[in-house]
């Protein structure tokens, strides 16, 4: 277990943003944090990155109390914001040098780490080019490269594929998988792209209206979306959600002797997300 959150609460004045949040994030897992706009994802990630203070609740980071071990937490975690949090007027190397030095790296250690981060994000050709001229995908890769400088145990990725082309997106997703499996890196991933979460994550939590609506293994969550499609002799198809009404399914079978086909299907994460968070527009 890398992070354990218990009864975490946070308010901005009178407005409650996080209410009794409890989560457990396993070491070496990719944890998907889903939620509509304004659900409190960014607040939660900001608290976990020491950018914001919590009001109440406890957080454990690799078994250590979060508040009393802020230096340890900061040393072993890294935050990649949704924005391009670097200096567009600096080159790739200049950006990495600056942030690397803030992490306490220097000399050969800094140079080696910069080389590693550039290689893993495939920015070798752009090492000495100023970042403002980069495409969206390259900027995202540089953003992630900076996040890897301190060789973190936990990496927070906040919507790391927003606004980029499919090739770059595909590259970044593969890179995240690779970092996770090769380095046993715990990744906390927030995104609006359900298929990314479905592809990447081992565990998923859905946050809405200040609360965790659902938190479980991806397979268990997807299992909840299973349904049976029954094809009758006349070709008419009927869908029955077996999870919600098993009795209804049995009754249907018993009352329809002309069934020609029964298929077990499942919906995707997006369907589950919309069902849980309702389809109302969020501001």
């Amino acid at each position, binding site marked *: 277990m890398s992070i354990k959150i218990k009864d975490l609460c946070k308010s901005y004045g009178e407005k409650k943003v996080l209410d009794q949040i409890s989560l457990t994030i396993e070491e070496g897992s990719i944890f998907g944090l889903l939620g509509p706009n304004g659900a409190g994802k960014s607040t939660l990630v900001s608290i976990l*990155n020491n950018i914001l203070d919590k009001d109440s609740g406890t957080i454990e980071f690799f078994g250590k109390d979060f508040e009393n071990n802020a230096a340890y937490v900061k040393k072993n975690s890294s935050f990649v914001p949704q924005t391009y*949090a670097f200096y567009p007027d600096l080159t790739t190397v200049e950006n990495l040098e600056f942030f690397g030095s803030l992490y306490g790296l220097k000399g050969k250690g800094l140079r080696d780490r910069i080389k590693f981060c550039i290689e893993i994000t495939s920015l070798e050709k752009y090492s000495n080019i100023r970042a403002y001229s980069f495409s969206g995908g390259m900027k995202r890769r540089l953003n992630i490269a900076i996040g890897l400088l301190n060789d973190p145990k936990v990496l927070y990725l906040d919507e790391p594929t927003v606004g980029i082309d499919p090739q770059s997106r595909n590259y970044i997703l593969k890179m995240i998988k690779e970092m996770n499996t090769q380095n046993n890196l715990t990744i906390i991933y927030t995104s609006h792209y359900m298929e990314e979460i479905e592809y990447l994550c081992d565990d998923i939590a859905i946050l809405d209206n200040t609360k965790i609506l659902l938190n479980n293994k991806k397979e268990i969550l997807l299992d909840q979306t299973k349904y049976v499609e029954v094809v009758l002799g006349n070709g008419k198809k009927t869908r029955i959600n077996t999870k919600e009404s098993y009795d209804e399914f049995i009754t249907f079978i018993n009352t329809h002797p002309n069934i020609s086909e029964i298929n077990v299907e499942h919906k995707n994460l997006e369907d589950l997300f919309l069902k849980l968070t309702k389809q109302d527009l969020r501001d």
Partner: protein
Amino acid sequence: MFVYILKKEFLLVFRNLHAMGVLFIMPMAFILIMSLALKDTYANKLDKKLEVLLQLEVKNDQMTALQEILNDNDFFTVTLSEDKKEQKTLLYEKKYDFVINMPNSIFEKIIHKNEFKIEMFTKPDVDQQRLTLMKNLLQQSLTSIYMKSILEEKKMIDLQDSIDSHYVYKNKDFHIQPTSVQQSVPAWLVFSMFFILIPISNTFIEEKNLGTINRIKSINISFLPIILGKIVPYYLINQIQVVLMILVGMYIVPLLGGDSLVIEGNIPLIFIISSAISFAAISFAILISNISKSTEEATSIGGLSNIILAALGGVMVPKVVMPLFMQDVTSYSPMAWGLESFLEVFVLGGSLNDILPDLIKLIVLGIVLLFISYMLLKRKNS
């Protein structure tokens, strides 16, 4: 780490051409323009004398004597004419700045205390000071001729050369009026040093808006080196401004016909003053950047504040021409603290003791502003 923080700030500011323009081109232009524009005001003379036409009924010795006396100054060239051409035509032909219609037999009328009128014509845009000067000069000249006519010439005492003028200010016993370049260089230098706000706010607000500050907050580092990293490069840029603007005053302004900058005081004192100004200006810029949400907001708030502080501080209108009430008001502007210290050294050759009170004010202001910024930055939930 600190080396890379400095490197980052230096690279960002030197790659920002607009900021460079504001920091170096703007003050150079102001110094050149204002030194040349105010040259005559400070020297109390005109490049081109104003042309005056005295319209007479008859030319005589007394009128020629009057012409000679009136011509004996740096401001007017007086011509006599018996032609009674219309004054408006003469003025708008742009040949004359003043047309004065002298009554006939004026000296007899003065001696016999008869009433008479001297009519003076000029265009409405004439400088009021010149108009008053012309009136006074005319009165003085007529009096002089009258006195000579009633006294023996050898008994006349010319008091003009016995009068020595001194500029006495409220807060100083003795003050030499600076030349235009001695006013312009320190004034626009102080102004441009406060415009360090532009590059500081550009980088700082970009850091806030892009989430770089949050990223830095998530790293295990104190904000002290980050703030120091912002002070040192911009302090050095301010010092480069000082050297360049002094060189402009010394070598470029004279090339264009202005006075050369002469520094009466101790050169190291100038850098002590510029250090105090720089510290206050950078702290002010960091605070404005901290409380602003966008570069536009910072530029508006900071730019407006700078212009008001400059107007109040004697940068735009020299303190020497302000009424006493406004001279009191200038003491509330940090730009005035810097400018007065510079003038003390540039013009009067003042010592550290003379400028110490203003330096202390600048440093205390800088510490207070910086402390507020530090607390704002350190604060979570911001």
